[in-house]
């Protein structure tokens, strides 16, 4: 792979909420075609980083910059980021009663097409696409006729996130602990799905606590996030090391250097 095309570039990103500093200077570069895994102890700021990238307004970005294919991401609304190709699979997908999954997806797909200057999709084409992508993650058909995530099991919600990702074909997908809550078969299935979607044109940031997922989705880079900073980066072997040794040695390294 000739690595020239920086897709995502995060420089010295700092963010806080209600005066509480959570991200303390993140630097990360992701190129098209790459998979980056982010690991790190609970409360390190992994979900916060994904939320800030996706455009959640609750967090104040106090310093730093983020660009997607050279465009200033922090300057865009959440919907524009999505239509530019950012997708966040939520750690805790919420339930939205009264909004049908099908109607929601049709709106999302067509809004993206509109943004790209394309006509809305024909109803039959849309249904065909939906059927195809549903098979892809073996999602039960009955789920799409229900309200978005309402009463879905934990695993069904996670599968629904990946189904949406498959429908929207993003450039940059951020999977925030998509593996938690999935049973063993679903984990393999979802991972295989992601692997099939991988291409030289898209990239993935995979947040996880477990090596298990990375056995399926093999990352090019592994980063450790701790106290709002990336404190260590390496290749896939770093995740295996963490699995064996935990985080204490990294925490000690960080404290020592401070």
């Amino acid at each position, binding site marked *: 792979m000739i690595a020239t095309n920086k897709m995502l570039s995060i420089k010295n990103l700092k963010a806080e909420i209600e005066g509480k500093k959570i991200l303390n200077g993140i630097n990360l570069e992701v190129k098209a075609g790459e998979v980056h895994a982010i690991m790190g102890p609970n409360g390190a700021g992994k979900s916060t980083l994904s939320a800030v990238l*996706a455009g959640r307004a609750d967090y104040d970005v106090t310093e730093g910059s983020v660009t997607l294919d050279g465009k200033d991401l922090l300057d865009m609304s959440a919907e524009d980021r*999505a239509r530019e190709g950012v997708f966040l699979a939520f750690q805790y997908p919420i339930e939205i009663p009264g909004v049908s999954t099908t109607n929601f997806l049709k709106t999302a797909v067509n809004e993206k097409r509109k943004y790209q200057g394309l006509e809305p999709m024909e109803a039959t084409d849309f249904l065909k696409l939906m059927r195809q992508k549903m098979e892809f993650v073996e999602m039960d058909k009955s789920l799409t006729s229900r309200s978005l995530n309402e009463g879905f099991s934990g695993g069904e919600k996670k599968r629904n996130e990946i189904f949406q990702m498959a429908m929207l074909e993003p450039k940059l997908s951020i999977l925030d602990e998509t593996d938690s809550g999935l049973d063993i078969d679903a984990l393999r299935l979802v991972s295989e799905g992601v692997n099939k979607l991988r291409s030289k044109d898209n990239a993935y940031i995979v947040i996880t606590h477990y090596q298990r997922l990375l056995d399926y989705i093999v990352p090019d880079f592994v980063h450790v996030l701790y106290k709002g900073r990336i404190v260590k980066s390496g290749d896939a072997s770093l995740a295996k090391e963490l699995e064996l040794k935990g985080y204490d040695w990294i925490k000690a390294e960080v404290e020592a250097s401070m």
Partner: protein
Amino acid sequence: MKLEENIKTEFHQYKNQAEENAFFQMREKAFAEFDKNGFPTIKNEEWKYTNLKSIFDKNFKSTCVSSANVKNLLVDSVFNSIKANKLVFVNGSFNPELSNIIEKDNAIVISNLAKARKENTNVFDAHFGKYAKIENESLNAMNMALMSDGAFVYVPSNKKVENPIIIMNVVDSTDINVLSQPRNLIVIEKNAEACIVESYISAGTNASFINVVNEIYVDENAHLEHYKIQQQTGESYQNNYTQIFQEANTNINQVTLTLDGTMVRNNLHFYMNGKNCDTLLYGLYITEGSNHVDNHTRVDHAMPNCHSNELYKGIMKDKSTAVFNGKIMVHLDAQKTNAYQRNQNILLDPEATINTKPQLEIFADDVKCTHGATVGQLDEEPMFYLRSRGIPEDVARKMLLNAFADDIAEKIKIPELVGLLEQLIEEKL
């Protein structure tokens, strides 16, 4: 107080040519009650947030005149395509030409009150004026004194009305300011079943005031679906009083949709007179401009083991105002009562106002009762979820508002009607 004078004049005219009978005596007693108390003012606790002054300072006249518009209005209404029994009242007068009864079973009576008073005397005498009290309820008294006509529905024991019964009230103020005072009497006997819809629409540009009273008796083991769809336009005022009297083991699903109207006041009262009643009350009000909607509900748990669940939702725009006052009265004997109440409001403009007040009065000790009210904007979390999928903020907001409102519309069990109402709601939001 122009209206008060109008009422007095009208009553004296009526009195001069009325027959001296029990019916007249009832009306005379009601008029005396009205005369004694006059119209409620905001000093009355029940009317604190709803000021009727602008109505009472106007001249209104009762009239049965109707314009050619009425027919078109009915064709354009959401009910036009619905297969149902339709009773049409224009300015409170029964219009047989525009009405249409399709029910086959002749034992089921779907008719008008004036006719029923003569032809269904036993049922009429047993129930008329028995449930909606007139003491300290001036507007009920005024209705009793001068009501014009209204729907009469009688479903005998073990009968099921196959098609919904739609009571279409059209207020036509094309020529003058109109006062309309219909009164509906509905009697559902043991084990019987019916679905009744009240509709309110209007024609004309003068002011109108419709003062409705509904008395509904539901006997043991009967099931009632009851919906109110309020869509009056122009300068329209409505006072709608409903007293539902439930015997043991009755099952009621009530939905009130207030989609338009300058000022709408609903007084919806349930009295559970037997054990094991199950009552569901749902309401949706969407207000805009300087419109005002006031929902006063009251559920009287008078007997043990009854269940009631109430959910009212409001969406308020512009400078509009709304009131929700939900009273749950658990009487001394009503052990094992389960009563729930929620009122959720979304204010879309900073100048919109809601006054919400739950009122729980509990005299029994073994009772489960909860209530809660929320006032606010749309939740941030679902907004962000939708936007994070590329759905623009305004589209996302509409989706969520529709979901919020449709939740109530979907409690109506006439699928074709729900679809049409949801379309209307979408256009409004």
